[in-house]
């Protein structure tokens, strides 16, 4: 994997996105995610209403990859139901593991498809998936039965 396909304009743009990196005044759910091996440390805040993500944001430190991945994720999940979010996270994680075959599934990830080949850079996989793992934990805590 070349540097230019890793640090694309899209990823760099998202990595500096200040719009999604903020505090949610009225978050209904907050979850911290940490990668002890590289120090990425992000906190995701969700505002849920009737099972839907009304707003979402994040804060914390991390490399360009983790910041971009988090920002794209937040764009993607706004307005979705818990179930939709869970499905999207599964598709994202599946994509990273190269387990998703169907193009139309990948398309659902919108911009986050940018991380499709991150497994070619094993040192960075954890950066790309951190936010998504954290999100799924947050959702599971909200809906413990599911």
């Amino acid at each position: 994997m070349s540097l230019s396909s890793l640090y694309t304009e899209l990823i760099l743009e998202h990595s500096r996105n200040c719009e999604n990196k903020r505090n949610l005044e009225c978050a209904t759910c907050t979850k911290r995610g940490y990668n002890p091996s590289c120090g990425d440390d992000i906190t995701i805040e969700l505002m849920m209403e009737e099972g839907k993500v009304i707003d979402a944001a994040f804060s914390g430190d991390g490399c360009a990859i983790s910041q971009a991945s988090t920002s794209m994720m937040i764009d993607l999940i706004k307005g979705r139901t818990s179930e939709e979010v869970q499905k999207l996270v599964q598709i994202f994680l599946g994509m990273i593991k190269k387990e998703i075959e169907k193009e139309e599934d990948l398309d659902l990830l919108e911009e986050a498809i940018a991380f499709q080949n991150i497994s070619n850079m094993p040192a960075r996989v954890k950066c790309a998936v951190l936010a998504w793992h954290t999100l799924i934990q947050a959702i599971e805590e909200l809906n413990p039965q599911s």
Partner: protein
Amino acid sequence: MLDIETIRSEFPALGQNVNGKPLVYLDNAATTQMPVGVLEAVRNYKERFNGNPHRGSHYLSVKATMLLEEARTKVAKFINSPSTKEVVFTKNATEALNLVAYSYGLSSIQSGDEIVICISEHHSNLVPWQRVAGLKGATLRYLYLTEEYEIDLERAKQIINEKTAVLAIAVMSNALGTIYPIEKIVDYAHNQGAVVVIDGAQSVPHLKTDVQKLNADFFVFSGHKLFAPMGIGVLYGKESFLKDMPPFLMGGEMVEYVTEQETSFNELPHKFEAGTPNVEGAVGLGAAIDYLSEIGWEKITEHEKSLTKYALEKLSEVQYLKIIGSKNLEKRGPVISFTLEGCHPHDISTIVDMDGIALRAGHHCAQPLMNYLQLPSTSRVSFSLYNTKEEIDILVESLSKVRGWLGYES
């Protein structure tokens, strides 16, 4: 059948002369020799992939991490562990047993509890439990052996009871060669509510291991008895136990957040792996597992059984020699202890060493057993897949001269 010529040619250490005679290495229960494939795997790692694993984003660090985790996957498969989270690398079986004793034992065992071990346990599966019992006010109880060096299951059922917090036992005794009916004992102990710690140090090189079938709560072994380097061992533990246990060694790699006054810990299995791991040891262990898998258990077991059978027969013919252990091939592995009347094992060892033969003399780190058997020590031969019947002939020939050297008429 094993192609023994080819196999021997793969072990450089076996080709040497000792005291002017071809080496006859019969101390495999102490440590094994390494095949070229393992030597090369370690060397290759050092020359091409050496880095400090985890926390690294450069090529060598990533490679080291991948190779370490690949080795863990091989170990998990080898012992049929359901997950790599349950495979912790230690420096040897002893550290693994101490980890369980310190972390599980000290946090779970209560005053009045009982810990049960077998009288034939290796000191490494004995002294840590003595200590836990002493610190916690628990009682250490023993399973004793019959005249045939077997565990009497009926008597065992009186010792293992609802007070038993931990049963710690080896599949195969390093001092007797006996293979105990572990699955039955484990079942019984589980029914009594005990947690079961299994010492596989001796069984792993000779019998296919399946921790799920054994239903072990914890299972340990050492790489160096399995054709792998020294300095690497394994603790398997059920996730349900490991996840709630406090960490043992503290330091780098095993932490999550560290603040000045508090620390939270990393996920399994890393929570139990503090400091820089022995990556080359793990790589070597992985290569040793590959080596064994390629040969296949069927051939290994068949070969070792035939050696054991032959050795039991031949040794029985040596005058004044007494085998200390079961003679029932179904109940024993390729480790044979014996005494030779009037001859101290240490002298025997020195004498046969002159014929290039490596055998072990002493208490085999099982002093309570020796005491129980009222023997100060024994001689022990132990076979591996690379030994031959010719080597047993050389042994028997050499043994038959020992009493002469020590001044006996015959």
